[in-house]
């Protein structure tokens, strides 16, 4: 316990004194990252590469938001993909049926997601561990079944077809591939920055305390239920953003977006990249998409290859790649200081 307390005091002190500094550093990194990504079309005409980055944006937003639940709060959601699907379907349906400007549809979808997530979250976050995982899974499948059975509204198993209208707004024309690419990058960077702020805020540290010892957090006067519900809704919003990027990219929405395998992939991405570093899920996203793309090119049995890679991470490294690297670096540093 004393070691834990000491560790927490150490991490809390710089939060207060260096919070502003760290925020400037994060914003700077974000600006540089966006500049690099946005200038990519100037150097390469490769549509495949830009497509890859767009897909990384969609999945990266989703996976990083899932890590707010899994890594920071210790809530293993098996149904986080429902908000990815909800984002894609909500956005697609609003654009197809209501002919509103894209930013309006974007905000409206986030609002719908927030309401749905608040209702589902209010039920789920009372439950512990494995029960939480399964009830979120059940809600995901409920939404998936609803999409399949409400064919007149959602297109059933055919998905939302006929394309999503992409009218230009503020000089941005998302029907243009480069515009769509830059918009996706901007959403990704803004989303990551916002999530980083949440994770580093006092609220973010409250979440870590709940993960490490919920009973203690509640003794300290924290409303655990409300904190969990808040992060559940916040994470849902970013997952929904990922779904919207995906819907814009494929110009449609398909039931697979709301199927539980999306959630499974999200968990897998997190494990692959690492859950104890903020950028771990992003690294995992790039790794998984690269892996999927290369393996499917060489063999039709990509399940075996993927499975073996997962086994390597689970049984060999026993942690995600970035976790492994960061631990290795800190060990080297400790060894260096000791000498």
């Amino acid at each position, binding site marked *: 316990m004393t070691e834990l307390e000491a560790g927490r005091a150490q991490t809390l002190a710089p939060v207060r004194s260096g919070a502003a500094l760290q925020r400037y550093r994060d914003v700077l990194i974000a600006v540089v990252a966006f500049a690099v990504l946005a200038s990519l079309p100037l150097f390469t005409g490769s549509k495949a590469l830009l497509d890859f980055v767009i897909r990384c944006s969609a999945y990266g937003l989703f996976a990083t938001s899932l890590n707010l639940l*899994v890594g920071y709060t210790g809530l*293993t959601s098996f149904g986080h993909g429902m908000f990815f699907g909800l984002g894609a379907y909500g956005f697609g349906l609003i654009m197809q049926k209501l002919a509103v400007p894209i930013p309006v549809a974007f905000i409206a979808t986030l609002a719908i997601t927030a309401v749905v997530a608040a209702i589902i979250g209010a*039920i789920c976050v*009372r*439950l*512990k*561990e*494995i*029960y939480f995982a*399964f*009830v979120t*899974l*059940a*809600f995901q*499948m*409920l939404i998936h*079944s*609803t999409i*399949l*059975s409400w*064919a007149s509204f959602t297109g*059933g198993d055919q998905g939302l077809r006929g394309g999503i209208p992409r009218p230009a707004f503020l000089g941005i024309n998302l029907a243009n591939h480069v515009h769509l690419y830059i918009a996706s990058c901007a959403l990704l960077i803004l989303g990551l920055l916002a999530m980083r702020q949440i994770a580093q805020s006092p609220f973010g540290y409250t979440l870590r305390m709940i993960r490490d010892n919920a009973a203690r957090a509640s003794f300290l006067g924290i409303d655990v239920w409300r904190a969990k519900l808040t992060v559940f809704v916040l994470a849902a919003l970013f997952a929904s953003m990922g779904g919207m990027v995906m819907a814009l990219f494929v110009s449609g929405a398909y039931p697979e977006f709301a199927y*539980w395998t999306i959630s*499974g992939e999200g*968990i*897998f991405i997190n*494990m692959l990249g690492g*859950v104890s570093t903020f950028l771990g899920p992003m690294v995992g996203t790039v790794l998984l998409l690269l892996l999927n793309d290369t393996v499917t090119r060489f063999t039709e*049995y*990509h*399940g*075996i290859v*993927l*499975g*073996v890679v*997962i*086994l390597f*991470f*689970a*049984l060999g490294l*026993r942690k995600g790649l970035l976790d492994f690297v960061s631990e290795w670096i800190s060990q080297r540093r400790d060894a260096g200081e000791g000498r």
Partner: protein
Amino acid sequence: MDLDALAGCLSSSACLVTQTTSGFIIGMLLFLVAVGLTLIFGVLKVVNFSHGAFYMFGAYFAMTAYQLTGSFALAMLAGAAGTAILGLVFERVFMSRVYGADVLMQLLVCYAFVLIFDDVVRIIWGPEFKSMGMPSAFQVMPLFIAGGVVPPYYLLLIGVALVAAIVLGIGLSRSRIGKVIRAAAHNPGMVSALGINTGLIYGGVFALGGMLAGLAGALAAPVRSLTPGMGFSVLIESFIVTVIGGMGSILGALIGALLLGLIRSFGSLGFPLFTEGLMYLFMVIVLVSKPTGLFGKEAA
């Protein structure tokens, strides 16, 4: 939605019998899978996400054995024994390495094997749908009960699952091995200190769970089509069963499985497209009102 069809069926004894038996065979197959799942969870504290694969292997083993020997009994034996061995090897070589590790790591190992096993089946038996066909011994006139049609094979299936349920229930509560298993579930350190090989118990329980799932697959083979990935939907449904019944409870698994089977069979009349949705809705309602499931004990 087609509530008229549902009401019409509920008022006709023939339809009632037909739907109830079909609900029971779905339920009994689910029970065999779910009881293995719940047993493994109860003793090893591991959520075996790859359990559906054992169901799938059971079906394929049975089909191959039936095609080679023409004997239905040998097919059942091949399904059950094959998956028992598979379960033992899987537990000793892989799962035993992640005991005590993060729950996510355990899930990940299982998820990896779901992917691997599906592809292995695809390589050995091909990606297309297969069917074992009804064994000749059961190609006889169906029984008519109150006007409802009941194929004799259905009765055999329900009977076998019931026998398994009874043997398992009595075995666990009365026999010496059952007592050791329950003790190991409760306090593995103490059992190990008493000189009992807990590794052996863990392997044995996993093999037993795998065998039950394999038996379910073998029993399902004559009435369902076989395809790589067939374990997936069964896995999700048996998860629902264990969660509804309460993790670790055998009686709960039985009741949960039968309820789910009936929901599926009658739900397919009233809500043809939303049958799956009904199951999830039921699970949500149960868990919201009683988070540990119908027969689950309060978490210690």
